């Protein structure tokens, strides 16, 4: 695409990013508002953060959410990577079409349907709902995202590297562990991150899968948001936005630096 700076482009980008970011910026600013009235500025205060940290229900919900997210995203990464490997490398086997269908279907399935189906399963097999059922439900839908991320990396991966490992005496499992896995590791990590955020973020599926005793943070936020804006939620949102922003920027800086280092090394090698 040829690059031409124009006022039209500058304007549309500016307006677009204002649209994307202004609501969150307002949220952050008003989390420091001392008034309970969330649309009138009454001076700077951090009291809502204090109240938030003193609110046991929120802290409990946050703890449940974190537990679920770590467990389900780890499980999903293992299963999703296996599924990706099967999709890209296992060749033909009976029921392959059904398998790839089951991988892609959850990506486009409305959450209400997935959640409903999960709940009905847990009830029919008589499973008590709680953290474990949320983990199972989250693992199932996030593993599909992991497998899409990992398989897109596997597709571009030079198969002859694995063949070289086999040729040099590796067993297929050795070849996977010592050659394939290190190379697809960045994709596996981003798969894990994606699964983790999806799990943290999920309201609908968790609402179906959770029992009365286990409430996740999104469920807690949702029930208080239905009552309207509250400064405590603003404070909580600010914390969550802050964590994500720091995380994403760090990740992008790390990957940028490793790309830069690789490039520098390649140039040094080319000069040598």
């Amino acid at each position, binding site marked *: *695409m*040829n*690059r*031409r*700076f124009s006022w*039209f*482009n*500058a304007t549309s*980008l500016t307006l*677009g*990013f204002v*649209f*994307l970011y202004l*609501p*969150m910026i*307002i*949220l952050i600013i008003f989390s420091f508002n001392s008034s309970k009235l969330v*649309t009138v500025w009454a001076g700077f205060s951090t009291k809502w953060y204090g109240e938030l940290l003193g609110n046991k229900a929120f802290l409990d919900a946050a703890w449940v959410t974190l537990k679920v997210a770590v467990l389900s995203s780890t499980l999903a990464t293992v*299963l999703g990577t296996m*599924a990706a490997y*099967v999709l890209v490398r*296992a060749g033909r086997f009976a*029921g392959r079409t059904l*398998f790839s269908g*089951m991988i892609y*279907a*959850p990506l*486009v399935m*409305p*959450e*209400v*349907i997935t959640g*409903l*189906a*999960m709940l009905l*399963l847990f*009830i*029919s097999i008589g499973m008590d709902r709680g953290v474990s059922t949320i983990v199972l439900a989250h*693992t*199932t839908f996030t593993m599909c995202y992991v*497998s899409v991320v990992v398989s897109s990396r596997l597709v571009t991966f030079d198969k002859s590297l694995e063949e070289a490992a086999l040729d040099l005496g590796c067993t*297929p*499992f050795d070849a996977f562990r010592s050659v394939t896995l290190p190379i697809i590791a960045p994709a596996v990590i981003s798969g894990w991150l994606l699964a983790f*955020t999806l799990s943290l973020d999920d*309201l*609908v599926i968790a*609402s179906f899968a959770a029992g009365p005793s286990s409430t996740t943070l*999104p469920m807690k*936020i*949702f029930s208080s*948001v*239905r009552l309207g*804006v509250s400064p405590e939620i603003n404070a909580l*949102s600010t914390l*969550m*936005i802050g964590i*994500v*922003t720091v995380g994403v*920027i760090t990740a*992008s800086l790390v990957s940028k630096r490793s790309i830069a280092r690789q490039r520098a090394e390649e140039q040094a090698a080319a000069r040598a």
Partner: protein
Amino acid sequence: MNLRRLVLIATPYLWLVVFFLVPFVIVFKIALSDYAISIPPYTPTLDLSAGWEGIKSFFGALDFENFTFLASDALYWKAYLSSLQIAAISTVITLLVGYPIAYGMAQASDEWRPTLMMLVILPFWTSFLIRVYSWIGILSNEGFLNQFLLWLGIIDTPLTILNTNAAVYVGIVYTYLPFMVLPIYSALEKLDGSLIEAAEDLGCSRAQAFWLITLPLSKPGVIAGCFLVFIPALGEFVIPSILGGSSTLMIGKVLFEEFFSNRDWPVASAVAVVLLLILIVPIILFQRNEQKQREANQ
């Protein structure tokens, strides 16, 4: 076939069968059952201990009654139609908002693009719920938008936006904008700049070159973006519940309420089955577009 390969294939396969396929079979089964005040709140239940007779009576009791109920009750088909309409309108608005952004990104200089890309993706990592929530304070009667418009003197009484369909459009456009921008951007970025120069060289004005070359060649990205917005918007639950009003009918919300408030599981299941059937058409069209893209790239 060696054991390792079997384990490798069977583990994710069985997981998906048990936790994805079987639940859907259950949904279909319950959609064909009847509502009952019992635990679980539907009949029949499969009684395997009664042997063949049990299975026969089980299948004999299944019927399409719930679906005729859905068809006869105006609430449901209105909810489907209104979901389709809201999803379609928001998709069009998202396209109109997203295309200029994607175009601007594609024309930006190389050093700016990664930053712009990150700026588009960043909201995707932040909580969906929070992003929807952030609009309550803007759209409410005392909200920032009304304050701003009153201050400008454009209006003299606050506009009611929150709890209307308009707020739902805003919510959908806002949360799904990255899904529209990214595929269009990737289509525009691949576009060879010399094509535009060639068009100008052959007598096109800039606007004509955009209309005749850029737009048709970004069509696959536009189609992908539209489906990526339309499909999830159709079954959306969070946005209509938070931003929409009591008059906002969306099928995801109806399903949720049918299940949790009315505890009518068979009808909720039937609602889900019909929603799935509606979704199959755009999903197949989307897959076909992706397939065509893959083939074109080879």
